[in-house]
């Protein structure tokens, strides 16, 4: 029985439950819903939730357990002597039997002795669906019956529905939080394994980055060096260049839009500036790699400078352009949040517009502006696509923006592109880099949000 059909049926039954509940609410009051504690629609939702939620929970649990139960039955039906093979072989064989039973692709011919086990597996799965549908049907019928019988003028249906809604929301936010925690834990765990192979001091303070390791004995490769300082320096260099572009342009356009521009101009200019934030970063990437970088190289050549064709300058400037809307939009918002009364106060004392902006608006909005810049920095540090395309792969430890540098994100990409052994130091290094990146952006975001919040409290 297909899952789609079951889900469709559940939807229809829920709708029917809603309808029945609403009607029952009218029936128990002889058509005068004013006598009810809750509105009739709440009685409908009450019945609908009793129809939907228990059955949906059962389905979720069932679908998680089903493959495990089926596999246990398969293993129980295997011929004797199976557990004498080694663990990897057992896994492979079980996989083959399962695939064959479901009509999939297998790695080779299967011993007919295993055929029986395969059939048990397939029939378990088939039966399981029907059993699940049956159990769900029972739950639906029981839930609907009980809920309908409980409908009476005194039933606190609204309270029950609102509590259910609250529980659903709690579950949703818990899932989001648990996922985040899961990601952090996996980062921490894998980073721990990496530091088991490479000492943490070498990673944090080493100046040599060359993660190529020979995978097989006959392969040419070095022993690998995992000093991440060049990556941090490269990231820092590109971020600094980006901020040199984004902060002045973003801040001045924010000041113009919030203090000088007419309402209509602001209404058009601000969304247009925000389009910059909507351009896919991959587009910025090839803009940087194919337009900006060659332009800098040619210009550099014509004045006798040696500019690398994948320069930090090109990547940084294009990243700065990408970040402009972050700075301008947030700064514009905080400057608008400065109360009009402060502007009036300054104007009434005879301050000009520029004096008002410089001496009253900017100091009042400064925490918010700092917050917006910090958020922009954390965005720049974590940006990947532009630097992958335009910044290069060579881990140069240099402060010269005309040379190629590489960043943390670029190295994570290159470490994980292609076929990898999952427990080599090379692959695990990506986790360590990712954790570092996560830690830096987390700190920046926390500081930025705190700064912004402190400022918000001041004027509310």
């Amino acid at each position, binding site marked *: 029985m297909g899952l789609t059909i079951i889900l469709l049926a559940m939807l229809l039954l829920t709708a029917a439950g809603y309808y029945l509940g609403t009607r029952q609410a009218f029936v128990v009051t002889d058509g005068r819903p004013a006598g009810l504690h809750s509105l009739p629609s709440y009685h409908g939702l009450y019945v609908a939730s009793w129809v939907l939620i228990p059955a949906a929970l059962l389905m979720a649990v069932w679908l998680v357990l089903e493959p495990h139960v089926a596999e246990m039955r398969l293993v129980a039906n295997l011929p004797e002597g199976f557990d004498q093979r080694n663990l990897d072989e057992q896994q492979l064989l079980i996989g083959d039997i399962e695939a064959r039973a479901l009509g999939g692709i297998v790695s080779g011919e299967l011993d007919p002795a295993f055929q029986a086990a395969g059939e048990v597996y397939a029939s378990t799965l088939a039966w399981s669906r029907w059993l699940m549908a049956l159990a769900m049907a029972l739950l639906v019928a029981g839930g609907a019956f009980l809920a309908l019988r409980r409908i009476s003028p005194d039933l606190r249906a609204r309270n029950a529905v609102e509590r259910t809604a609250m529980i659903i929301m709690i579950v949703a936010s818990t899932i989001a939080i648990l996922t985040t925690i899961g990601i952090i834990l996996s980062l921490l765990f894998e980073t721990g394994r990496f530091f088991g192979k490479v000492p943490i001091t070498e990673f944090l303070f080493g100046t040599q980055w060359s993660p190529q390791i020979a995978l097989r004995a006959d392969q040419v490769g070095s022993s690998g060096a995992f000093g991440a300082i060049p990556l941090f320096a490269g990231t820092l260099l590109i971020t600094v260049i980006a901020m040199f572009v984004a902060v002045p342009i973003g801040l001045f356009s924010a000041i113009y839009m919030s203090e000088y521009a*007419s*309402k209509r101009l602001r209404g058009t200019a601000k969304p247009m500036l925000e389009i910059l934030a909507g351009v896919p970063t991959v587009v910025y990437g090839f803009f940087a790699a194919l337009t900006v970088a060659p332009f800098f190289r040619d210009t550099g050549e014509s004045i006798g400078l040696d500019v690398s064709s994948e320069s930090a300058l090109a990547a940084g400037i294009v990243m700065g352009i990408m970040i402009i809307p972050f700075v301008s939009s947030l700064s514009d918002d905080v400057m608008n949040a400065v*109360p009009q*009364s*402060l*502007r*009036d*106060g*300054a*104007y*009434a*004392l*005879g*301050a*000009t517009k520029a*004096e008002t902006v410089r*001496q*009253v608006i900017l*100091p*009042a909005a400064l925490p918010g502006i700092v917050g917006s810049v910090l958020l922009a920095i954390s965005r720049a540090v974590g940006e990947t696509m532009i630097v992958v395309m335009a910044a290069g792969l060579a881990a140069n430890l240099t402060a010269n923006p005309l040379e190629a540098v590489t960043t943390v994100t670029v190295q994570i990409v290159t470490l994980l592109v292609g076929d990898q052994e999952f427990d080599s130091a090379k692959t695990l290094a990506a986790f360590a880099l990712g954790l570092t990146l996560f830690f830096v952006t987390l700190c920046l975001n926390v500081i930025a949000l705190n700064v912004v919040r402190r400022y918000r409290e*001041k004027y509310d």
Partner: protein
Amino acid sequence: MSDTQTGTQPAGGPAHGAQPLANELPVKVRSRDVNVYYGDAHAIKHVDLDIHQHEVTALIGPSGCGKSTYLRCINRMNDVIDGCRVEGTIEMDGEDIYDPKLDVVQLRARVGMVFQKPNPFPKSVFDNIAYGPRIHGIGNTKSEMDEIVETSLRRAGLWEEVKDRLSEPGTGLSGGQQQRLCIARAIAVNPEVILMDEPCSALDPIATAKIEELIDELRQNFTIVIVTHSMQQAARVSQRTAFFHLGILVETGETEAIFTNPQDQRTQDYITGRFG
């Protein structure tokens, strides 16, 4: 601004409906046929009003009658508002304040303003007071500035309360103190006229009493125009009252006369609480 009518009026003459005061003080601000439009809305219609030197003039009237709009014409604060247009003439000491050659910054140094809600800058008490003098280049040395700050705070009756807290933020003071700080900030640039837009509406009765007392003292040195919703306040602090209704200046005259013997039925209805 285009149709200048001042020439047709006798100099120093009272506006219509006004009763001459025994010892008439010279007119500081003279308005003739002032019209204000917000886009298409005609907010103030043909207002002729004389504001006399060293007097407190109260502008009363129901909400939306245009009294705040008129007040904001006197220091051209309406310039800031999009789509606002002012016609007619407003003269201060015989000088048209809407003359395009006149620098609005200079005007606002001569006409200070205190707002409905206290609006100290998020700076220290000292810097709040020093802000105006600094932008107008008054008080260049530290000691001069100290003196300006102290005098202004003393005149606003705030010195004793804040003299030990000059470096603390002005936003940390109580509401009444903040409003007196704003008054001190306005007098620090030594203006000739002070405009007050419902200066007590956000304050409790005790703070209000202090401000009213202060207004009466300030009258010695400044010309004061105050917008108020409180009839008692108008009666207590002002020498002259102007009643606005629906953008029209209905009646103006000595405060006592307006409150005891109003000439217009609408004035009578308003001050007896029949509407507004």
